[in-house]
């Protein structure tokens, strides 16, 4: 059946999908050449993840479509996860598909199957061994016995990727399908991933890749398909393309010029002063953030960036150190305290720390402001809904209705909703942990604009991002954390993506084989 070279690895024809009567994909035809790196692009909510889930057999497509994999055609109704797996498809979904209460090795086994002893009992030892090997060959430093819920978000991503890259049942008919794998990965890890993708390609494997990091796409993709509002609007080679052209394809409009970053007033008063902060992995960090200033924090995986933000938000214990907010000493024992002092945190782990998954979107957007709608004797529900609806529009959150449960939103739109929730408070100090993860290029520009406007009104922001390009374009100043302390600060012309990358990277142990 797998004899004879196919000209396409995967061909999707006439794929339609509706949720609750709302069309999400409309008659999508798409083909992917074997051995190519094929990027699937589109704005938030354009249907990329849905398309990939259909390819995974997780969502059934509406009647009429066909999925063809290496020459074998399946009607939409007869396709399922088992077929996808047998056909050599491996996935890293946008929300990873890791089960939090199982160990890393069990999460591997969920997809690759459990090794058995004598055809009966699970061979736990064998599973641990094979998992450790897969993790090692993907350069992921995680104990296979750890529960996934105890991993940091970035490690979770790495684990999911390592699971997809596992080199059991190797073969050229393997297709890797990656949905925004690098959204919250620091540059180094992202680099390792891209390297691995190239290696897979060189083995003849096919890669389908979704990302909002267009530079990355241009770097590795051979071809791109662009979705707009569920319609496939373009499919072409990357040769000769630039980012602006891609954005134009995604939006149907000319790309806007990125705005130059303004410089803060020289004599600005500090909003936040931290001295000798010791918490978790942090070993004495000094930091000042002034009014009108956006300060970036760069560092490696596990360098303590999130811990820094969480400490400043009262959500992690500060073991030692001094903290001043607006010139006055502050003791933040809980997020509540922090919010009272005008601090806001957009956490990096959306699913765990931000999403009220089953509550409607409008309640999610209102979550930080519930009390303010108390009119003395009852909730001003109408006002609350109106305000939420306005914010949904301002932040360009794509949804059928403000009543849609949060989980039904696309990843990027969820992130926008979380941002909206915090920006509406007009906080003095915005703490942003991977603020634009999963957000499309256009919306990211809009969000950057909102942050700049916010800061321009006399506030400040502290931004953690693994996307150094974002740090460069957004921040006035970037500090670099390493080994629990601040090792560098970049400002002005020295603040470039390359400089940040260089400062954060440690002896990049290049993959030795191949």
């Amino acid at each position, binding site marked *: 059946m797998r004899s004879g070279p196919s000209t396409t690895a995967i061909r999707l024809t006439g794929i339609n999908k509706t*949720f609750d009567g709302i069309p999400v994909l409309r008659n999508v035809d798409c083909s992917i050449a074997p051995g190519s790196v094929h990027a699937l692009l589109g704005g938030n909510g354009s249907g990329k993840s849905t398309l990939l889930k259909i390819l995974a057999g997780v*969502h059934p497509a509406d009647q009429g479509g066909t999925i063809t994999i290496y020459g074998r055609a399946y009607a939409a109704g007869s396709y399922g996860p088992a077929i996808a797996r047998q056909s050599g498809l491996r996935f890293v979904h946008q929300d990873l598909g890791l089960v939090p209460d199982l160990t890393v090795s069990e999460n591997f086994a969920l997809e690759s199957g459990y090794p058995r002893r004598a055809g009966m009992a699970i061979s736990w030892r064998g599973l641990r061994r094979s998992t450790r090997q897969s993790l090692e060959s993907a350069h992921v430093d995680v104990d296979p016995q750890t529960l996934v819920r105890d991993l940091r978000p970035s490690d979770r991503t790495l684990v999911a990727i390592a699971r997809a890259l596992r080199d059991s049942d190797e073969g050229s008919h393997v297709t890797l399908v990656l949905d925004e794998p690098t959204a919250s990965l620091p540059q180094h890890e992202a680099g390792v991933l891209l390297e691995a993708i190239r290696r897979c390609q060189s083995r003849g494997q096919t890669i389908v890749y979704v990302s909002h990091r267009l530079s990355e796409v241009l770097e590795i993709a051979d071809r791109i398909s662009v979705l707009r509002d569920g319609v496939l609007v373009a499919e072409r080679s990357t040769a000769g393309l630039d980012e602006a052209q891609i954005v134009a394809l995604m939006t149907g409009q000319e790309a806007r010029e990125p705005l130059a970053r303004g410089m803060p007033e020289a004599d600005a008063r500090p909003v936040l002063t931290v001295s000798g902060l010791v918490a978790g992995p942090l070993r004495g960090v000094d930091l000042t953030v002034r009014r009108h200033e956006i300060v970036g924090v760069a560092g490696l995986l596990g360098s303590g960036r999130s811990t820094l933000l969480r400490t400043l938000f009262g*959500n992690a214990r500060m073991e030692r150190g001094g903290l001043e907010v607006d010139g006055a000493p502050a003791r933040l024992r809980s997020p509540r305290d922090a919010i009272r002092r005008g601090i806001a945190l957009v956490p990096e782990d959306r699913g765990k720390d931000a999403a009220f998954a089953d509550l409607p979107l409008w309640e999610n957007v209102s979550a*930080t402001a519930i009390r303010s709608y108390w009119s003395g004797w009852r909730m001003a529900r109408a006002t609350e809904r109106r305000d939420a609806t306005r914010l949904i529009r301002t932040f360009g959150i794509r949804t059928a209705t403000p*009543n849609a449960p949060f989980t039904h939103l696309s990843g990027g739109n969820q992130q926008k909703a979380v941002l909206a929730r915090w920006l509406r408070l007009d906080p003095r100090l915005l703490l942003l942990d991977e603020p634009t993860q999963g957000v499309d290029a256009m919306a990211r520009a809009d969000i950057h604009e909102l942050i700049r406007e916010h800061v321009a009104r006399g506030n400040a922001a502290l931004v953690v991002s693994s996307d150094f390009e974002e740090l460069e374009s957004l921040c006035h100043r970037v500090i670099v954390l390493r080994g629990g302390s601040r090792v560098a600060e970049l400002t002005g012309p020295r603040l470039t993506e390359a400089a940040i990358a260089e400062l954060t990277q440690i002896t990049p142990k290049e993959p030795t084989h191949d």
Partner: protein
Amino acid sequence: MTDVSPDSAVLPDQAPAPRRTPVAVVGRDRSVAGVIERYGLLLLLVGMVVFFALLPSSGEAFRSAANINSVLASQAVGLTVALALLFPMAAGSFDFSVGAVTATSSVMAAAAVSHFGLPLFVAILLAVASGVVAGAVLGLLVARYGINPFIATLGMATLLGGAIFAYTNGLQISKDIPETLTDLGSLSVFGIPRIVLAAALIAVAVWFVMRHTPLGRHLFAVGSNASAAHLVGLNVTRIKFLSFALSGLVSGVAGVLLLARQGAATSDNGMNMLFPALTAVFLSTIVIEVGRPSVLGTVIGVLFVAVSVSGLTLVGAPSWVSQVFNGAALLIAVGLAGISRRGADPARL
């Protein structure tokens, strides 16, 4: 790592099952399937009422004001107990102690007037306070020490049942229960039993708190994702604590109503009030605001069961029929909701 929900892990103990997956757009789905899903139980209830009211063998008696009042009044206490359950359920915990707390409160009130000769209003205060204390202790255990609410509340229920028995020695307390109180259980105003009005008042109050105060919204936020609730500045410990304390408060009031209605406090441990209350609250999650427990839904759930008991008694169906009927009705009610939902979205799990 600050983790708000301690070891919620695999068990459904923290979040009651219906709220794990959002089943549909809350309150706004106007498709046919959506309407069936949201109003299915109400339609079944109405259908049942019409059926028994028109059936020759039951109709006349069923339609009589006396019977309607009896059906309503008989559910007043049960409804109040179910309302008490709503708070912890909204905040994501089970509370298996509501029945036992209600029973304790009723014994407390009866003992206060009958054994200690305290004035009625003091007795009522004591009874309600006993409910609040029981709730507060549970709140402390669950919210502050992160104890599995199922075991904590079941332990509390067992303990209270034992305490009631130890105190009453299995006898009921019926002497000197003031008529002011029992009148509340027996008399009517404008043809409506007072106790029904009392329960309705409590229902409105609970509805108001759940729907029109920040606390109500906070409860749902904590129930949905405690960690996220903590990070938007809610005091999760306090809110969980309050959910149990409020549950105790309402259970305490239910105990006073129970005494008013029975005219005596029995040594019953109240556990038989638990399942009807749980059923009503769970039924409420498939009505109107699908996916979350609601006051209106609870009222419908309580009536649903009460009407079937009354109607089947009138028809003269043997006991097993009413059991089989109730079982089947539950399955049909939720089945209807489930199937209409599926019809709307075959993709859903």
